[in-house]
């Protein structure tokens, strides 16, 4: 067969065409070689501007823009994106509407031009989820759960952590999260875009881990002490959970891509699962091996404020801001029991080492020791942290118990809005109380401007149970030896 034109000429013509088209395409879509995908830039636009009303917690017009499948599915009014045709996509129509009352997002400035251009490009190029456009790829995170097996060698302590520059802040960030290694004298606490590591004995600084995703709200060590879970993010912008190798500071996995900072998270005892939750009102359970979403637990009607896996790995306890606690089967995500007693936001959940008792505490000032197999409170303590009443002030004072944590011997440590940390015996009897204000005086820190509240935020026991450690809203730590270490008088 004879070609009408020499093949070389055809090739050249194509080349000329391409060269001629290329600059124009680049102007419109940026780097043409990299396709626009949902994962990454598109999801980020939705997360920032849309998911408040079209997300996990609320689906205005039946539409969720929280995930790829939901976007493609559309809302109660039908599909919102038509692959290859941005001009026919309802999504583009509403974000570019001239009339402010018809435009999305409502009552706000229109989306920036770059965002609109990007969304159009994404639709026009076939609404791909990720660079491997052939469906959902299994993400290999390269994390190998060590399970509950005893590690060889000495307890994991940080050795060579990657260097990074800590962001400068006006003043120290509140200690939103605090964790102690169960096997080593190591304490981790949150700073702004960083996690500080100190020695629980000497208080000496051991290094820091970068958390450029924002504020760590949760820190938890794995039972082996080898893995540190950090979860958090930026309020109303993004949230995730990260697994760190304690020795090297390397990131082992990143899980979740939330629209708001993660407020509660835990790593299962076998390190195979991470559960997390926040303002989205659902608890998501991820596999740490492939990053897949295993379960979405939706029974809570308010923000998830605390969650914890039982040490035996069988149960997951989750709690919310309206005072509800639910127990789930950790393996299947099935409902086990609701635990109803609290009348205000729950701030903390902690399991006793034998997995028989769960402690909960909250803004209603109540601490409950739950006998989990029966679903009844074993004992409870109301008004556990009663604040001193300033003269001339009447009415209810904020008396919340903001954190509660079990020690190895079944003792419970709590801290509350009365500015104290307290120690409770396993029968609910108070044993000791420590004041962070007195501790601050002992630290001889200069007082900050008057009127700025100083509140304890988190409390943990050191790995050996001999030191109770609290963090406060001024970003400091307080250390108190527990009674058994008190020198004989």
């Amino acid at each position, binding site marked *: 067969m004879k070609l009408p034109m020499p093949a070389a000429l055809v090739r050249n013509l194509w080349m000329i065409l391409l060269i001629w088209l290329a600059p124009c395409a680049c102007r419109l879509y940026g780097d043409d070689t990299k396709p626009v995908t949902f994962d990454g830039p598109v999801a980020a636009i939705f997360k920032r501007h849309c998911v408040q009303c079209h997300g996990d917690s609320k689906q205005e017009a039946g539409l969720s823009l929280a995930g790829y499948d939901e976007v493609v599915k559309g809302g109660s009014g039908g599909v919102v994106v038509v692959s290859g045709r941005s001009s026919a996509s309802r999504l583009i129509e509403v974000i570019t509407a001239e009339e402010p009352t018809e435009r999305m997002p409502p009552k706000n400035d229109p989306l920036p031009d770059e965002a609109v251009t990007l969304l159009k490009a994404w639709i026009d190029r076939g609404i791909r989820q990720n660079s491997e456009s052939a469906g959902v790829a299994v993400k290999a995170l390269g994390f190998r759960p060590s399970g509950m097996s005893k590690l060889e060698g000495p307890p994991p302590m940080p050795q060579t952590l990657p260097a990074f520059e800590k962001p400068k802040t006006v003043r120290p960030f509140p200690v939103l999260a605090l964790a102690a290694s169960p096997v080593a004298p190591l304490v981790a606490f949150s700073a702004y875009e960083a996690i500080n590591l100190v020695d629980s004995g000497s208080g000496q600084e051991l290094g820091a881990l970068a958390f450029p995703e924002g504020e760590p709200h949760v820190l938890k060590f794995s039972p082996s002490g080898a893995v540190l879970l950090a979860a958090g993010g930026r309020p*109303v912008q993004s949230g995730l959970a990260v697994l760190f190798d304690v020795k090297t500071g390397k990131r082992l996995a990143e899980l979740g891509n939330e629209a708001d900072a993660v407020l509660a998270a835990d790593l299962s005892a076998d390190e195979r699962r991470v559960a997390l939750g926040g303002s989205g009102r659902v608890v998501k359970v991820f596999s740490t091996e492939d990053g897949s979403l295993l379960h979405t637990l939706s029974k809570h009607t308010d923000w998830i404020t605390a969650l914890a896996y039982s040490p035996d790995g069988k149960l997951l306890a989750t709690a919310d801001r309206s005072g509800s606690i639910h127990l789930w089967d950790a393996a299947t995500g099935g409902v086990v029991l609701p635990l109803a007693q609290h009348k205000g936001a729950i701030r903390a959940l902690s399991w006793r080492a034998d997995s028989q008792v769960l402690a909960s505490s909250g803004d209603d000032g109540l601490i409950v020791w739950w006998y989990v197999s029966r679903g009844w409170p074993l004992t409870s303590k109301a008004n556990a942290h009663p604040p001193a009443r300033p003269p001339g002030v009447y009415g209810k004072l904020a008396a919340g118990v903001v954190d509660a944590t079990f020690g190895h011997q079944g003792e419970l440590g709590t801290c509350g809005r009365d500015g104290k940390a307290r120690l409770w015996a396993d029968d609910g009897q108070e044993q000791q109380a420590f004041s962070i204000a007195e501790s601050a005086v002992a630290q001889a820190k200069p007082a900050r*401007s008057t009127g700025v509240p100083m509140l304890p935020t988190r409390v943990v026991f050191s790995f050996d149970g001999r030191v109770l450690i609290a963090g406060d809203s001024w970003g400091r730590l307080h250390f*108190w030896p527990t009674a058994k270490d008190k020198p004989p008088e």
Partner: protein
Amino acid sequence: MLARVIEKLVQLALLIGIGISVPTGLRAEDPSEPEGSPVPSFRRDVMPVLFRAGCNAGTCHGSARGKDGFALSLFGYDARGDYERMVNEMVGRRVNTAVPEQSLLLLKATGAVSHTGGKLFASDSEYYATLLQWIEAGAPDDAADIPETSGLQLSTNRLLFQEAGASTTLEVRAVASDASTRDVGKLARYFSNNESVAKISADGQVTAVGPGDTHVFARFSRFTVGVEVIVLPAEAGFDWPNPPAFNFIDELVFERLKNLRIAPSDLCDDETFLRRVTLDLAARPPTVNEYQAFMADPASDKRDRKIDELLADDAFADLWTAIWAEQLRVIGGNYAPDATYVKAADAFYQWIRKQMRTGRPLNEFVAEMVDASGSNLTNGPANLYTMLVHKPQFEPKAFAADFSQVFLGVQIQCSECHNHPFDRWSQDDYYSFVSFFTGIKRKPGVEPRERRIYWDATVPPANHVVDGRPMPARVLGGVKPVDMAGDPRSALAAWLTAPENDLFSRNLANRIWAQLLGRGIIEPVDDVRASNPPVNGPLLNALANHLVQSQFDLRSLVREICQSRVYQLSAKPNTSNVRDTRQFSHAHLRRLRADVLLDSVAAVTGVPRRFNGFPEGTRAIDYYPRESGDTEGPHFGDPFFSTFGRSSRATVCACETKREPTLSQALHMAVGDTVKDRLGAGGEVKKLLEMKRTPRQVVEELFIRALGRKPTSEEGTAMLELVGAAAADESVYEDIFWSLLNSTEFSFNH
């Protein structure tokens, strides 16, 4: 290794004692606080920004359950709680003192992150700057002695625009409790009561829109202050007719009308006046004899004499008894579970009637009820504490709200949950006022129906809802609590009915005026608030003043009003006042009260109406509901009253008395038994025919009976055509009578 750590710990513990503290390593020292500009105060500077931006409005975070998980107190009544929720509830989230510009408060308000409330201000605005500075300073709470806002000053209280489109800007200054003032023009919120007259921008710029009068308001802290705005119609073509003023009422109304370029209507004719004043004062239409005598009277003072004659009639006292009984919710129950037996209701009703008939000064009348104790069966006025709120237990809060609404026209109940958003009343005022009634108790008497009302001095005062503070009894607007040693109600009665208490005298004057003119100077009459000002303030003050000067004599004020030219104006509008509905430039058409209408039908047909549980001959205005069971719910007592909107006494609201015409009313008058069964039953037509009157005379008399006027010549001719040859047939005249009673002219006062 473990042993080493323990050893180290023990050493440390020994070294420092109980509290060992270690620097966090992040910073060796806390940073010194930023210096320079003074730190914004939470109450003085930060909360006004939240108010201005609408964060704490009822539709947003100020709603009872907050919004999207963040709650503020409505318009900021609870500063301590708002601080707690913003700063401490979720440490580091809403307010981030480490990285201030990352505070959610700022990101949300500027729309930088998704926010249901949208973008409220820009990051280069002064609002943003205030919040940022405060957070940069560590978001401190205020010292306990910070001065609070105690009032608002506006640059003017009256604006007069010559034409639409003109504008000016209000200056708003807040006065603090330390007497300092500051400009809050950029922090206040503004609204107009009528945007078709004047609108006001977010920065306080008032623009005239169209002719009329209204008020625009500035709100700041818990204060709402109004500015009267008048936009004049075009001057061309307007001539002030300069009508003569009969008394001070005319002077004040006409001055206002002249300013607004509205000409009042003409004086009504004698027929209209006679019918109007007889219905208003005696609750019935004039009789034929009264009509003839009045029309034949050539004296120039006959209207004034007629007013005096009607005021002396018991019917006047009985009508006002009915009005008070409605407001005080007099209802009797035969098996009422709690203190509201028929016998008690009757004692109350008879007592009210006696006060009205003997002309008891209104302040004494009210004071006696307020201070009353003892048996509900023998001491009528004590039933204020059984009937105003029909409940098995005495409820101080509900009672205080209704008490204030009836006797002051003020609805303070908004302040139960938050400071009144559009008036001066705070929660402090409300709970202090409730404490006047917390000690009221009802104990069983000697017979089962009897309850004895007494004051229990052991009951503590009401507690403030926000902080639980005990609030000793204090009068509204008062500064110091009254002496709580004994029964505080005598102090309450003394304050309430004192000549100086213009809330009381203005409320009474306004209600009396509304009864006679069909519309209050403040409307609704029981919703007096800063944002609902009188349409003619000087007039209301003068009426209240007259009431005080006359020792609270009801008849004296009614006489003064009825003698005014304003009361006697025609209902027929002219070109300049046809649109006026609120400045009394012409008479309003008023549908008769349900009871007056029923009595009128009975009077003109000569057939009285019977009421269950009342003796033969009882008029509708003498009737109050007597029920078989409990008295709490709405009770009309008679189906006619429910159709024609007599107050069901379910609440003390003035709106319970309805004056709107409805279709079912028209149908009831046309085919119901009230009119139909009475046309011939009284034999009035028969009597007229027996007196050998001519058809023309009969028709004329029917007109006078029903409408208080003679037929026009067209009406007369048409009626005689209808009668035609059947001149002796009663039924023809009964048909004519039926059509007269079904005319709107019959059921309206005009």
